[in-house]
C-alpha cells in the first residue's frame, strides 16, 4: 500500500479527526497536552478497548453480542467472591485465568444457541444477557463485595511508568495498558494472520460461500462467542481491580457504548468488515472526548450528549465518505 492509498483509508481519516480534536483541546487547555492526561486516557481505554476487540470479532463474523457485559459481571463476581472467601492470597494470573475460563464457559451458552442451533445472535444474546445476569444476581450474589483478593488491590496500584510532573505530583501509567496492548496484538494476529481469523471474515462476508468452500461455520462461530466470553471474563477482573470491589450492578447496560466505539472505527459494520486499528481508534476517540470534558470546563452532564453526537456524526461521515469513494 502506498502513501496515497493509506490517506484514503477510513482509519487514516479517523486518525486525522482525533489529532485535530487533540490539537483543539490542547489550545483550549494546555494541561491537556500533559503526560498525566495522556496516561489517564490510556488507562481509561483499557476496559472498553479490550471489550471492543471481542465485539469486533463478533461483528466480523456477522453477529452481534449484547450479553458480554453480563458475562463480564458473572465472571467478575463469581471469581472475586470465590477467591475472596476461600483463597484471598490467590495470585493475579490465577484469577485472570479463572475469569477467562468462566467467561469462555458462559460464552459457550451463546455458542450453543447461535453456532449449534443457528438462531439469530441478536435475539439469543438479548435472552442470555437476562439469563446470565439473573443467574449472577440470584445465585452468586447481589451485594457489593469489598474483600477482594489482595493481588487485585495490588494490581490496582501497579504503575509501570511514574513521572514527576510540574505540579510536584506524579503522572502514572497503569500496568493494565500492557494487557490492553497484548489483547490488541493477539486479536490483530488472530484476524490477520491465522486461517481461523480469515475464516471468520469468510463466514461474515458470505456464509453460503463459506459453506461451499468447506468451512465449518459451527466451529468458527463456537470459537467467536467463546472468545468474546473469555475477553469479557478478563475485563471483569480488571474492572474489580480498578474499582477495588466487585459490584454486580456495574457494567451491564453499557454494552451499546462499546459497540458504538467499534462502529465508529469502520465505515461498515458487521459481516466480514472491520479491523483492530479502526476499532482502537474508535475507542480512543470516544475515551478522549469522555475524559476531556472536565478539562475543557464543560459540565460532565454534557458527556452522554456529546458521545451521542460523535456517534451520529462519526458514522454519518464514515458512510458518506464511503459512498463517495464508491461512486468516484
Amino acid at each position, binding site marked *: 500500500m502506498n502513501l496515497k492509498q493509506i490517506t484514503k483509508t477510513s482509519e487514516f481519516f479517523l486518525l486525522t479527526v482525533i489529532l485535530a480534536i487533540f490539537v483543539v483541546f490542547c489550545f483550549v487547555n494546555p494541561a491537556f497536552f500533559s503526560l498525566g492526561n495522556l496516561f489517564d486516557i490510556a488507562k481509561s481505554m483499557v476496559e472498553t478497548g479490550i471489550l471492543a476487540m471481542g465485539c469486533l470479532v463478533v461483528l466480523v463474523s456477522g453477529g452481534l453480542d*449484547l450479553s458480554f457485559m453480563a458475562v463480564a459481571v458473572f465472571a467478575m463476581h463469581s471469581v472475586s467472591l470465590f477467591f475472596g472467601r476461600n483463597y484471598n492470597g490467590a495470585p493475579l494470573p490465577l484469577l485472570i485465568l479463572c475469569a477467562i475460563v468462566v467467561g469462555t464457559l458462559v460464552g459457550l451458552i451463546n455458542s450453543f*444457541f447461535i453456532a449449534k*442451533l*443457528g*438462531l*439469530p445472535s*441478536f*435475539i*439469543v444474546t*438479548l*435472552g*442470555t*444477557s*437476562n*439469563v*446470565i*445476569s*439473573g*443467574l*449472577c*444476581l*440470584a445465585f452468586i450474589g*447481589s451485594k457489593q463485595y469489598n474483600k477482594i483478593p489482595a493481588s487485585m488491590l495490588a494490581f490496582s496500584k501497579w504503575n509501570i511508568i511514574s513521572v514527576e510532573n510540574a505540579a510536584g505530583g506524579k503522572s502514572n501509567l497503569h500496568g493494565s495498558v500492557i494487557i490492553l496492548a497484548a489483547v490488541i496484538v493477539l486479536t490483530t494476529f488472530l484476524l490477520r494472520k491465522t486461517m481461523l481469523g480469515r475464516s471468520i471474515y469468510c463466514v461474515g462476508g458470505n456464509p453460503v460461500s463459506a459453506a461451499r468452500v468447506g468451512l465449518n461455520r459451527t466451529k468458527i462461530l463456537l470459537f467467536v462467542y467463546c472468545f468474546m466470553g473469555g475477553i469479557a471474563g478478563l475485563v471483569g477482573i480488571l474492572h474489580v481491580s480498578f474499582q477495588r470491589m466487585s459490584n454486580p450492578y456495574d457494567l451491564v*447496560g453499557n454494552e*451499546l*457504548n462499546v*459497540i*458504538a466505539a467499534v*462502529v465508529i472505527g469502520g465505515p461498515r*459494520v458487521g459481516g466480514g468488515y472491520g479491523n483492530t486499528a479502526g476499532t482502537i481508534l474508535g475507542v480512543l476517540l470516544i475515551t478522549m472526548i469522555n475524559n476531556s470534558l472536565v478539562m475543557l470546563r464543560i*459540565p*460532565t*452532564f*454534557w*458527556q*452522554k*450528549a*456529546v*458521545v*451521542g*453526537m*460523535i*456517534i*451520529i456524526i462519526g*458514522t*454519518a461521515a464514515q*458512510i*458518506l465518505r464511503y*459512498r463517495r469513494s464508491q461512486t468516484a
Partner: protein
Amino acid sequence: MTKILYSLKTMHLARLLLIFLTTLILISVLAPSSFLTGASFRSMAVQMPELGFLSIAAAMVLISGGIDLSVTGVAIMSGVLAALIMKMLGGTEASSTVIIPAILAALGIGCLCGLLNAVLVAGLGLAPMLATLGTSNLFTGLGIVLSKGSAVTGFPSAFQMIGNGSFLGIPIPMILFLLAISGMAFILRRTKYGFRLFMYGTNPTASFFSGVNNTRVLFITYTISGIVSSIAGILMVSRINTAKADYGSSYGLQALLIAVLGGIDPSGGSGRAIGLLLSIVTLQIISSGFNLMHINAFIKDLTWGLLLLLIMVWNYARQRKE
C-alpha cells in the same frame, strides 16, 4: 421452506398463548390468596404500561426491519422536558392547565426525536442500529443536560393523576396502554400505512419498485415510535412524581425482548399487536407473581431471558421436524 416459516408465525402466537396460560395458572395455583386480588391486578396495571408503550415503539420499528435503540432516550428527554415546563410554570402550586403545554411539549419533542431518527435512517441511509445508538446517547444526554444531572420534582396534582389515578377502577396508564395497543392493531391491520409498513419490512427493494414511498413509510414509523416513547416518558414521570435522566435506562433492551417474544420478527415484515400484548402480560404476571411469592427478584430477569430462548428453540425444533 418459506411456507413453513409463514405458518410458524401463527404458531409462535399459539405457543405464546400456551406459555401465557401456563404461567397464569401456575401462579394462580401457587399464590391464589395474594395473586387473585384486585390489589395485585391494580399494581400490575400500573407497572405494565410504561414498558408497554416502549415495546410498542420498539415493535413498530422492528416491523420495518430496523431497530430503535433510542426509545428510552426519547422517553427520558420528553419526561424531563415536561417536568421542567411544569416547574417553570409554577410547580406544585400551578393550576391544572399547565400540564397541557407540558404534555404537548413532551409529545412534540418525541415527534422531533422520531423525525431525527428518520432523517438519519431514511435520509442519510445510516443503518438503523447505528443511527439510533447515537441518538439514544444524544437524547438521554440532552435529558441529563436539561435537568443538569439532577432530579426534577414538584408537579401539579393533576399531572400525578395521569400515572396514579384510575377511571372506573382501572388505572389510567392501563386504559391508555390498552388504547395504544388497540391503535397499533388497527394501524397494522386496517390502514394502508400499516400495509405498506409490512411490505417495506419484508423487502424494501420490492416495495420501492412497487411504488411504495419507502421514505414516507420510514418517516411515519420512526415518528410514531418517537411519540409513543414520549408517552412512556410522561407516564414514568407522573407515576413516580420525579423526572430523572437515568431512570428506566434498562427498559430499552427489555422493550426489544418483549417485542421479539411477542413474535415481532426482527428481520422485519411481520408481527401483531396481540402478540405484543400477550408477551407483556405474561412477563408482568411472572414478575408480579414472583414478587408475591417472595421469590428473589433477580430470578425474574432470568425467567424473561429463558422464555425468549425457550420460544426460539421451540420454533427451531418444530421447523426442524417439518
